[in-house]
């Protein structure tokens, strides 16, 4: 089950809001486009799939970079270490 702040991160990735508590009613949209309560509540069901998609995209991006560089992930860690 996604946490409320993870859902809001997904729905409003650039922030600009304040939330007191974890309910939709506690959200103040200070410097962002407001979302609806329905969007917020639906976000809990959508989050897991979105997170999987984000992780997959991140992994694919990483693999592409490693391939382009012609090194393995362990070799990349050695370089960064």
């Amino acid at each position, binding site marked *: 089950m996604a946490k409320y702040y993870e859902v809001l*991160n997904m729905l409003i990735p650039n922030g600009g809001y304040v*939330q007191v*508590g974890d309910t939709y009613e506690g959200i103040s949209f200070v*410097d962002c486009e407001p979302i609806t309560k329905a969007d917020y509540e639906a976000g809990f069901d959508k989050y897991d799939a979105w997170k999987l998609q984000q992780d997959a995209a991140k992994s694919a991006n990483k693999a592409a970079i490693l391939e382009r560089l012609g090194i393995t992930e362990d070799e990349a860690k050695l370089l960064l270490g």
Partner: protein
Amino acid sequence: MATTTPNFGWAVPTSTDLVKDGAVAIETLGDSIDASLVDLKGGTTGQVLAKATNTDMDFTWVAQDDSNAIQNAIVDAKGDIIAATANDTPARLAVGTNNQVLTADSTTATGLKWATPAAGGGGKLLQVVNATYSTATTVTSTSFTDSGLTASITPTSATSKILVMIQQPYYLYNLIDQTAAGYQIVRGSTNIVTTYNENNYVYVGSGANAAQLRLSPTIITLDSPASTSSLTYKIQWKLKSTANSGTIILQSDSDVASIILMEIGA
């Protein structure tokens, strides 16, 4: 053959003297007594006899309230006390008001004055106010935002200082890169502590990875409000940037934050 009395040396006849000499002897004795007691003559009502010198029977009449005695008239009212204005110079010091204390003050005539003591005495803890807050408050704004933690205090003296102590758990994180948060403590609308200068942000994360930080730091500051009105203190937070899903959650997981205000006497 005449003799003398043992204490004053007055000439008196002996028991074997002739009777015919008695009148002369009595006259001589009377004159001696008269001379010895001459200082007892005179005086006025209310005067008392005082020694004039160390010589026997050397007296003088003096006023009962002579300059070497403390006079009744020197005090006028209940609570008056006698203090010296100089060597051998007593003077009246009128009583002060309730709860005042006698204080040395070289600028006054008597070197003393009645003064109201500083409330509670210097450096003493006069009162403590405590408040807690445990509602998670998520801030993703770049403007200072109330975190919900607040407390009010009414100083008993304008010279008092207010020691502000805050313990506030928070969860700072981002999903991609780096984020930073800063806080300020305000009294009413007056900012008394800030950490949002570039070097004072709380940073988390580096590079292309998510990062998170959970802390429950204690923040302490000493304020001099110069007021006896009700004062409200609170802590506000903001993010340096909202990029990368930067987020700070105060009282995360409903952890309890607390603010303690202590009034310290000047």
